[in-house]
């Protein structure tokens, strides 16, 4: 979680849950060392609410959890979307539903991250497959949360969460940081907290500052006051969705491996992408034209990148640790959904190179 500190984290609220407890333990020590605040709240819901409160006073905030806790946080997550409060939520995924399989890997919360809270909305969710990228994506998450005034979900998995490997800490200033866009409206002049600028961005005023305004989870007008005026309601939901969906390109992060002439494209993310890359490199050694598209932005779904990458491929194999949550998205966006296959594993064990090769043999009609 050094990435969060690098990004300027000042406030963390959490509740113990495997496999994300290590984050809380680490930050309970590291945050006060730099004058930041850590609090262990009475439950998952309260932790999510507390970080929203702390964000409103002008701080960069984080909470971390796993499946059951992520479920509990959904209502407050929707609040942060509606009230446009920047915050970052880490979900170190484990097998579900329910208590599921706490100490084993899964990637089953991809769609929950997208649609977990009720109502139409847009969301940003990022992931990573190694510690260096976890660091980078965490910094990105804080930057995007501030840029778009929205919660950003970091969807990690148990293997990446519990694994140990080298991490080179960038120097301060090496990765650009986005600070909060604060209003330039002076004291005594009307400040409209929910009137977006021309570019769609919404400058904020800290609670405790000179501008007093209302924040609510209800549909609201430019003053932040509740409204059921159809025009206001329509305008707000469009704004909440458009500010993210219209910036897919700006939000999309991915990595390409051997894609230039690839006839078989593997699409993967998180720990599963490590196995996928292992297979791709093995096939390349045998002269087979395999490539890997590793997605780091899962939501908004990078439809264009996926469609373009897969356009020339004979077959596309999505490698993930669920029953095809990203596979369905890939099928939705490519020119020929019939060439998209799923190589998955759903038993709490990281998908192995053998699993992927078996699927490839099946696709090729070579049997198991």
């Amino acid at each position: 979680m050094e990435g969060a500190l690098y990004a300027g984290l000042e406030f963390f609220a959490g509740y113990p849950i495997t496999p994300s407890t290590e984050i809380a333990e680490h930050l309970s020590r590291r945050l006060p060392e730099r004058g930041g605040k850590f609090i262990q709240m009475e439950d998952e819901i309260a932790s999510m609410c507390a970080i929203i409160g702390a964000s409103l006073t002008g701080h960069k905030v984080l909470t971390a959890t796993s499946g059951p806790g992520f479920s509990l946080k959904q209502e407050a997550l929707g609040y942060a979307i509606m009230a446009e409060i920047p915050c970052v939520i880490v979900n170190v995924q484990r097998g579900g539903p329910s208590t599921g399989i706490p100490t084993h890997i899964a990637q089953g919360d991809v769609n929950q991250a997208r649609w977990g809270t009720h109502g139409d909305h847009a969301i940003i969710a990022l992931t990573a497959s190694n510690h260096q990228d976890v660091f980078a994506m965490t910094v990105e998450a804080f930057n995007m949360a501030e840029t778009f005034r929205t919660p950003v979900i970091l969807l990690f998995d148990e293997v990446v969460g519990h694994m140990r490997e080298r991490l080179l800490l960038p120097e301060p200033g090496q990765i650009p940081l986005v600070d909060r866009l604060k209003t330039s409206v002076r004291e005594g002049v009307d400040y409209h907290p929910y009137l977006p600028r021309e570019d769609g961005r919404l400058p904020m005023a800290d609670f405790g500052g000179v501008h007093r305004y209302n924040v609510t989870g209800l549909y609201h007008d430019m003053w932040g006051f509740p409204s059921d005026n159809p025009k206001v309601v329509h305008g707000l939901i469009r704004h909440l969705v458009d500010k993210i969906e219209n910036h897919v390109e700006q939000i999309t992060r991915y990595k390409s491996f051997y894609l230039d002439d690839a006839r078989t494209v593997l699409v993967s993310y998180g720990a599963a992408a490590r196995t996928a890359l292992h297979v791709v490199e093995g096939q390349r050694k045998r002269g087979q034209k395999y490539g890997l598209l590793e997605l780091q932005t899962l939501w908004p779904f990078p439809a264009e990148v996926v469609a373009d990458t897969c356009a020339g491929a004979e077959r596309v194999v999505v490698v993930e640790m669920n029953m095809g949550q990203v596979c369905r998205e890939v099928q939705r966006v490519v020119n020929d959904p019939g060439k998209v296959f799923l190589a998955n594993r759903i038993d709490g064990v990281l998908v192995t190179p053998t699993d992927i090769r078996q699927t490839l043999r099946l696709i090729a009609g070579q049997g198991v």
Partner: protein
Amino acid sequence: MGRTRLVFSGSGGQGVITAAIVLAEAAVLHEGLIAVQTQAYGAAARGSATRADVIISDSPINYPMVVQPNIVVCLTQESYNLYAPIIRPGGLLLTDPRYVHTERKVDAVQREVAMHAAVMEKIGATVVYNICMLGTLLGLNPLVRVESILSVLEARMPKRFLEMNREALLLGQSLVAS
């Protein structure tokens, strides 16, 4: 050096996960190598079966788990029964006769070293059993330098425990010095 895949197995409380972490850190921080360490996790209880994997390599490691290890360390009968058969031909299987009765031959170098007995006799504290095991392992296969392990230990633990760990490391090594 290519790639070495290790599996440390035993029961909770023996310190196999710590040993794996120390080895991986030594390789990364003090030998300029690439290493990945993972573990099979259960509820955090003493006495349950544990397994920690380490891959040490001079090139990037993608798939982080060990399927076929070059080196297997088994510190319980149960883990021996489970993991001895998956060793690569020509690998190294290290066990302690205090815990493991070896029953079959595998196509690997099999070493039974009385590490527990030595630790009890020379140091008298089981907490450094895992470090003694590391010493023995390095005596059999110098994956990293002893100094690298010591540097990691120095950074990880309070000074008052350091000497005992050093002793255990060297003791382990001496058990297999020819």
